[in-house]
């Protein structure tokens, strides 16, 4: 117990790194996913090819392999080390963010595609009938509807990303897992510190789930049961 209290500050620093990595990856991931999902649902085949390949590659291979390729693989090439990208790729932090973002972006794109494709045809036709331009229709109808439909599935992806971020510890980052492993390397209290790591992950995912739920309620307010008018007591 004393050991845990003594090392808790370090574990909390690790927790901050974990949350940072997850949030950054999710933010960049969404930026990738929206255009990828839109292109993926295009009627033109040449628009579908690139996002299809992207999703296929990043959803079909392990995150750990993607991260190792990015971190240890790219750095083997001299021209990468002398390129302008090196200051970013040199840092394990940004390698992890990039790998995570590409990975979660692929999954999110598929989730969004599902959302887009389950928008009732009638709503699209109605938008067209009103004379909306394709851009306006995207902004006002397609994307908001797709997000609403896809939100619960996206919530899963957020939690997966949080747990997946533990892989950052394999490229020298001291996130929750990395910190726990380094501490265990010194004092061999594996049960205690992996236990503490698990509790921290649980707490963080609980907070994430609450936020996701709040957003979900907000997004689908129209589906909630009508507020009960309290009966006036007389």
């Amino acid at each position, binding site marked *: 117990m004393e050991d845990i209290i003594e090392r808790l500050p370090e574990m909390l620093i690790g927790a901050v790194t974990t949350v940072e990595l997850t949030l950054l990856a999710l933010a960049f991931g969404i930026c990738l996913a929206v255009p990828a999902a839109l292109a993926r649902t295009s009627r033109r085949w040449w628009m579908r090819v690139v996002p299809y390949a992207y999703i296929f590659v990043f959803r079909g291979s392990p995150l750990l392999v993607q991260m190792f390729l990015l971190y240890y693989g790219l*750095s083997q090439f001299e021209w990468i080390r002398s390129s302008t990208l090196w200051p970013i790729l040199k840092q394990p932090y940004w390698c992890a963010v990039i790998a995570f973002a590409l990975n979660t972006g692929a999954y999110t794109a598929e989730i969004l595609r599902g959302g887009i494709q389950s928008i009732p045809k009638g709503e699209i036709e109605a938008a067209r009938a009103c004379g909306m331009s394709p851009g306006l229709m995207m902004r006002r109808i397609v994307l908001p509807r797709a997000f609403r439909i896809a939100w619960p599935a996206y919530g899963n992806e957020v939690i997966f990303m949080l747990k997946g971020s533990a892989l950052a510890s394999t490229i020298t980052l001291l996130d929750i897992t990395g910190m726990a492993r380094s501490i265990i390397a010194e004092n*061999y209290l594996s049960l205690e510190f992996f236990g503490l790591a698990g509790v921290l992950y649980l707490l963080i995912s609980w907070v994430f789930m609450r936020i996701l739920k709040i957003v979900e309620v907000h997004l689908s307010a129209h589906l909630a049961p009508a507020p009960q008018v309290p009966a006036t007591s007389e």
Partner: protein
Amino acid sequence: MKTWIRSVLFLGALAICGSGAAEAKDVLRIGSEGAYPPFNMIDKDGNLQGFDIDIAKALCAEMKVECKFVTQDWDGMIPGLLAKKYDAIVASMSDTPERRKAVAFTNRYYSNMLRFAAPKGTKLKPTAEGMKGKTIGAQRATIAAQFAKEKFKDSELKVYDTQENAWLDLGAGRTDAVLADMLVAYEWLNTPEGQNYAFLGDSFDIDDHIAIAVRKQDKDLTKKLNAAIDAIRANGTYAKINAKYFPFDIY
């Protein structure tokens, strides 16, 4: 007739069970890592090779038991021993007071010193002052990592899951120097990847004895292993294995 068949089957079953039990007795399961050349590494066929493995085989031969090797990641090494996944760790493990809280150690089978490896012609000095603000790489859960953390407080320490990844990142220029076991660094400096790198300064003598870890309750096994280490030192087997890897005595 039927009884005859039955008794044959019975005896057959007995023989199979009996031989199984006898075999299980003579097997010593040895845990090693396989990512720490030249001491333990995995060859093209997926088998463990290296100095540790050769020593373990020689010890098994001396003790007249069969060696069975189990590969295990480094930071799960001691937990794996305690969980009885194997009976002894022959993986270049240093005998330390911290580890002695969890496991018992035999006498040493070689000694280790630490030394920096850095790019050839670097202006770095291997002192706390000289390494200030520089990035040092080391393998997680090793003496080198602990030594770097304690003696080079003003340097940034990066810890890797395997020693090979630490070399990769030195090669990529993500670290300024790697602190590692001298013998391991010696091996890497002799590879094509290590040709533009050299030892930096002298080695740090850290009174570091590499020994075999066993569970505390297996006192008998510890004794037998110690006797076997003495025997292979005396009969020249050790010197032969040593010469295969290093041009100097590492005991």
